[in-house]
């Protein structure tokens, strides 16, 4: 099963009753929740898809699941598809996921409650926690810092899981942290910290871009245009449903089923918006920022990682 995607084979099988069986892997949070809605609301079924939704943890596991053919499609960030591409793994983006918008950024730089920092460049010489290096939260914060005139080499970046940030703030271990929902809400509610700014604003000059996307291996994508179409169509329907404020209550209850978030947390949470079409200009900014901070050695064209 080591050969590129050989485990999944080129073809996705159609079962006797005409449904197409696929497995998809996603993360158990709001940003990966499209699949849950599509599954629960029957959008997959409508397209003749018989989908098994697996929840997987992190980028390496997601990639391995797709690479081995264990899952046909999986959710990740554009940055990891780009990294994979640079490393010689041919992943192709097949559909859109959560979108950044200026009024719904999804990621925030937060400061502990008693912090004397008032603007971001003051973080020079201090410690900043990010969940992982070279991911969007990290790079966008660097961009924000640099744009504000700070010397980023003087910022002491430490990696810290989102779940640990609250505790680190409480005990004064870090001076700032880049946090996603719902942790930012919780930290604010607990009175441990406050929001400084949204670092994603610096990625695409405040314009929309994809925060997460769906991808598959090139081999599978090329060999199964029909299945890809059906998957896109189902997600499109799911997006329309999820983006409709009228469905917010129902959406939250499905989300709760998968994530076990409490009612209080859900009540304070601003839900993410999802996009259908994956266009180059909604992916390229993330790739550019990777290049800016030397994560990838040379420029990559967004078109090369987006499936037809």
């Amino acid at each position, binding site marked *: 099963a080591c050969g590129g995607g050989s485990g999944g084979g080129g073809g996705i099988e159609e079962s006797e009753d005409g449904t197409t069986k696929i497995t998809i892997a996603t993360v*158990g*949070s709001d940003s990966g929740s499209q699949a849950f809605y599509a599954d629960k609301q029957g959008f997959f079924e409508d397209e003749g898809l018989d989908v098994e939704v697996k929840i*997987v943890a*992190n980028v390496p*596991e997601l990639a391995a699941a797709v690479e*081995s053919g264990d899952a046909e499609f999986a959710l990740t960030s554009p940055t990891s598809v780009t990294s994979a591409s640079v490393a010689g793994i041919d992943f192709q983006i097949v559909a859109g996921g959560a979108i950044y918008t200026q009024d719904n950024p999804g990621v925030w730089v937060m400061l502990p409650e008693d912090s004397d920092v008032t603007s971001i460049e003051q973080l020079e010489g201090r410690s900043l926690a990010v969940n992982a290096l070279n991911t969007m939260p990290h790079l966008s914060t660097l961009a924000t810092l640099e744009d504000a005139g700070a010397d980023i080499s003087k910022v002491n970046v430490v990696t810290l899981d989102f*779940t640990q940030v*609250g505790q680190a703030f409480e005990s004064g271990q870090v001076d700032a942290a880049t946090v996603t929902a719902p942790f930012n809400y*919780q930290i604010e509610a*607990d009175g441990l910290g406050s929001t400084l700014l949204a670092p994603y604003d610096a990625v695409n000059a405040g314009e929309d871009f994809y925060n997460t996307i769906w991808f598959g291996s090139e081999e599978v994508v090329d060999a199964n245009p029909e299945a890809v179409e059906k998957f896109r169509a189902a997600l499109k329907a799911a997006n329309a449903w999820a983006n409709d404020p009228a469905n917010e209550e129902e959406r939250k209850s499905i989300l709760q089923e998968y994530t076990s978030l409490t009612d209080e947390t859900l009540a304070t949470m601003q839900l993410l918006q999802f996009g259908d079409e994956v266009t180059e200009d909604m992916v390229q900014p993330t790739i550019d920022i990777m290049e800016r901070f030397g994560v990838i050695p040379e420029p990559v064209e967004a078109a090369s990682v987006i499936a037809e």
Partner: protein
Amino acid sequence: MTVTSAPVADTADDGTAVVRRRFSSASFNWRGLVFVVALVALIELLTMTVVNSIYVPRPSQIAEAFVAEIGRGEMLSGIGGTLLAYAQGLAIATVLGVILGAALGAFQPAYNTFRIVIEFLRPLPSVALIPFSILLLGVGPTTTVAMIVYASFWPILFNTYYGVRDVNDVAVDTARIFGLSRLAVFFRVQIPSAAVNIAAGIRISAAIALILVITVEILTRSGGLGYYIIRMQVAIRTEDMYAGILLVGIIGYVINLAMAGLERRLVFWNGDIRTNGGSR
């Protein structure tokens, strides 16, 4: 670390007292309970006064959450899968570990051949191997079981290796004298001689396997109690997360109790018979 015989036993007034105490310790350990209660009370006190963190719930809150979660059923729903993967993983690791460890212990050339590879593989953290395992075995119970086997195999292998290697010469020679084949000597003398060590290895691995099954479930989100714990952590339900961890600890405790009971039966001749006499 089982609560059993102590060679330098506390002074007893007469033999029967010692015997009685042995029995009472086997049936119920009040002292252990007292210690636990005292410790919990201390933590409760500390978390109420000195340690004031929302990320460190008080024992009473955890207990409350524990009861509530048991009632809700969510926490227990994945436990079957977790225990199954655990049992499979530990069983495979035990069989492999005992057989290979014994073979290496009984046959030095084999040990020489594999030494470097073994020492190379041993320190590789299973955490780092998960992606490779997913690549080969996919996401799900197979990967979980494989990772449990990988981590809990080594203690059994090494304890068995030492036990078999250090078996006393006279015992082995006796069997050889009576014309037992190498294989028979191996199974009927070396393995039983090493039983004390093997049992200790299995007891170590029983705990490691539990840690691993939870860790892998956490890292791969592949269901079970580990997934419950990480879901609670990500959902910022700290009390419920600790309730899950409490459950892991309780499971571990019960498993250990069972293991210790089993061990006492299997290697009954180890020390027990002598101390049965009630030495002071």
